[in-house]
């Protein structure tokens, strides 16, 4: 026992001395696994946007950012932020479903959240991203155009249910599909108005994966998506029996178990009116 205590004290001593030494060492690179999308700027700050592949795309996007002071070139670690993407259409403007922006756990200066672009840009219509943030009680803002190209396969679907509500359903996972049982998750949002898209609670997303190029065969043992209390997304199991192009046919069920959009796939119906696509 005494021996163990001695060892503990010894360890503590070494550890403490070490951490004092490392003060001079450059901090870990917090964006090592990320690729920069673009740097936005205003008079006081540079804001670097990051994602896994350095791009934004129609659908669900996980976005990270950090704020750098123009003076001193130091990263800000105590900001509070919110973001507002706006789609500038010819006749109107609207936003899209977004999360809050929060400090990434375990980092000093990285903030993260998600944005679901339900539309892609085109020749005449485009997205801007507005960032409102406060540092030590001082408010700042910044707006820039961002590029949101169309995804090659459908990752988000927008539709009106039988309840006359407009919904947005976006694929989150699998982001790297495998021939296996994949964890599948989607976000379901409703359009309250042009600027507000809250998460929909207590619904159910029924899935039916099909391969249209192979006689529209399905896969076995899929598990429909139900809402998780932790992240509020809908989670289930998606089985993909081979690589290639899969159409994930969907049916959205409300809390009462009524299907408010989508049709079952069968001999007479090749696809549901709402679906997502995967290709790998």
């Amino acid at each position, binding site marked *: 026992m005494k021996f163990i205590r001695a060892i503990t004290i010894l360890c503590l001593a070494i550890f403490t001395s070490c951490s004092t030494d490392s003060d001079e060492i450059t901090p870990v690179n917090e964006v090592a696994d990320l690729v920069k999308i673009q740097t936005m700027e205003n008079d006081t700050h540079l804001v670097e946007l990051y994602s896994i592949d350095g791009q934004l795309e129609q659908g669900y996007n996980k976005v990270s950012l950090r704020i750098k002071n123009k003076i001193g070139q130091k990263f800000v670690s105590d900001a509070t932020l919110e973001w507002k993407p706006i789609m500038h259409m010819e006749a109107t403007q609207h936003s899209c479903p977004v999360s809050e922006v929060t400090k990434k756990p375990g980092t000093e200066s990285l903030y993260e959240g998600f944005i679901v672009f339900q539309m892609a840009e085109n020749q005449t219509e485009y997205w801007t991203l507005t960032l409102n943030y406060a540092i030590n009680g001082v408010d700042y803002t910044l707006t820039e155009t961002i590029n949101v190209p169309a995804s090659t396969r459908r990752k988000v679907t927008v539709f009106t249910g039988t309840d006359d509500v407009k919904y947005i359903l976006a694929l989150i996972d699998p982001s790297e599909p495998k021939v*296996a049982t994949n964890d599948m998750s989607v976000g379901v949002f409703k359009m309250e108005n042009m600027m507000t898209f809250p998460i929909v609670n207590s619904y159910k997303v029924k899935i039916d994966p099909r391969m249209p*190029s192979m006689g529209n065969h399905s896969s076995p043992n899929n598990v429909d998506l139900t809402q998780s209390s932790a992240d509020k997304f809908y989670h289930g199991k998606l089985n993909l029996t*081979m690589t290639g192009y899969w159409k994930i046919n969907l049916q959205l069920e409300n809390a009462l178990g009524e299907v408010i959009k989508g049709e079952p796939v069968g001999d007479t119906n090749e696809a549901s009116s709402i679906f997502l696509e995967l290709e790998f």
Partner: protein
Amino acid sequence: MKKIIYTAISLLLMNSMLHAQEKYSDTTEVVSIKEIILIGSHPQVHQKEPKPLGSIDEYLETSAKINMIKRGAYAWEPMLNGMTTERTVITIDGMRIFGACTDKMDPITSYVEISNLSEATISSGQQGAENGATIGGSIDLKRRKTGFNETGWKVGANTGGESNGEQKIVGAEVQYADNSFYFNTDFMYRDAENYKAGGNREVLYSQFTKYNFSAITGFKLSETQSVEGSFIYDEANDVGYPALPMDVSLARAIIGSVKYEHHQLSETIEHWETKLYFNTITHQMDDSKRPVVPIRMDMPGWSDTYGFYSKVNMSLDKHKLTANLNSFYNKSLAEMTMFPNDPNENDMFMLTWPDVRTLYTGLYLEDVIALTAHYSLQLTGSLGRHYNKVASTFGLQSLQIFYPEMTESKQRYLKSLSSQVLLNKKNMEYTLGMGYGERAPSVSEGYGFYLFNSFDGFDYIGNPNMSNEKSVEMNASIGFENKKWNAKLTGSYFHIMDYIIGKPDFSLSPMTIGANGVKVYEQLEYASLFNSDISIGYSLHKNWNWNGKLVFSYGRDNNNINLPLVQPLSYQTSLQFRKALFSIETELQGATKQQDFSPEFGENETAAYAIVNLSASQTLFLNRQKMTVKLGAENIFDTYYSTFSDWNNIPRRGRNLFVNLSYVIQ
């Protein structure tokens, strides 16, 4: 040439002496009852064979215990006692080899040529457990070799042709042998076009080309010790499978072994041999010759096996003991890539055999006891450890879609026991035997992933959770032989528990376009199989022989429903005339209507049929040269027919005329 053929036919002929001969034990030596089929190039039968350049498949088919499943003109799948290759063990000189095709287009027998082989030993049920766990029995193909004798150099050439399918056969062999060294090598080439069924109806996609090269050599290390090396290279290209939706562009086997043999180790140990072997098989399925397919696909498969056996034969008083320790390691991998009609879509890829590794190690013991001058008893037993592992993560994850709890490996023990009494008295011989055996599921049954069966139109999914299939068998035979007559009646009954079979699961969606559904392998409580055959021979006169054979089989599951591929009552009879170096034979062969068929397996009633074959041969000697000419006609009345074992009822060959020539200089 035509003239020769017509002359031959116009002679009154006949064919096919049963090539099958049974070794009967006599009172001086106890031999277990195994059926031996002598193969064309076997020195003892070279002149007797009606068709020395026939395929190995045609030879095996002459056994009453063997049926061949035909998916085309090439690579027939042997069934032993009504059981397919999952339930039997097929070896080449004791070597385990596993086909690389998920659709069974390449049974082991397709990777050898008659010129490689001297005989096939057929052991029924647990008497065939020496080289591995089996239910139905085993077929061991024995390599041909001169052995250590003073025959010196021998050079030979064979050539043959068949009118139906325009098969061309060319072969050559070179041999050298003396007292301490021998070297045999041979080459065989076959090339055939589509064959025609009765009524001149062409069977599309029934062509094939095959090359086979083999070499075998032995050295004597001492009077009692020797070493032997053996090698076979076999390649088939452009093989059509009219009964299947795909053909084969390449089927290749490389088979090699080294053997050490020691005779007369001591008073009791008569013989000890140890062999190390390997083989590698590549199989490439191909649909590029088919004009219309729902989707184009590639389906390659690979099977590599490494193994050894070590076998001792001992003699102790009344006991003849055999012990065989054997082991193999096999790696089976097969893929499927489908090419979508929309070129912008990604290829669709899956593993149909998920890189399954099988490690088997078993010990087999046999004791043949001469109880009295007339009675003998044969006891056998074996115990094996069978280990499977899915080496591909991709494949394991694919199967976990069906079996989420599945782990990558599985181990099982396979046991076997059998006993047989043999009574030999005067002209009569009786045997009575019992046995128990187990087998592990095959790679397809355990781990197959969407394997399409074109017979029933279902995709098959393997089941890794199955237990051993177990069989209790009983067999009996009565034989009689005197100067003029010989007759033999044999019967065997198998009660197979946890019988493995695919059963439809209509909740699953088939992968193959147009398939009827998905079947998953599962185990029936039991199934019963009964096979019996009677054969009779009579020598009418010193030059005339008559033979007849009748085969009856029965197969039902535990609900008394027919099993698939059960042979209807079949018969064969032949008359042979032989004088000096000339012989002529005629044969009638047929089956009654197949009434007991399995609609669930896609079978329907197969009509009765009968066909007549004729052949004649003449051997000529000229100093040290020997030339044999064989002519024959098969299905001379050009009957259009198919048998119970023709996959998807593809029709069999119509009238076929053949000529085989062999020329040897010694």
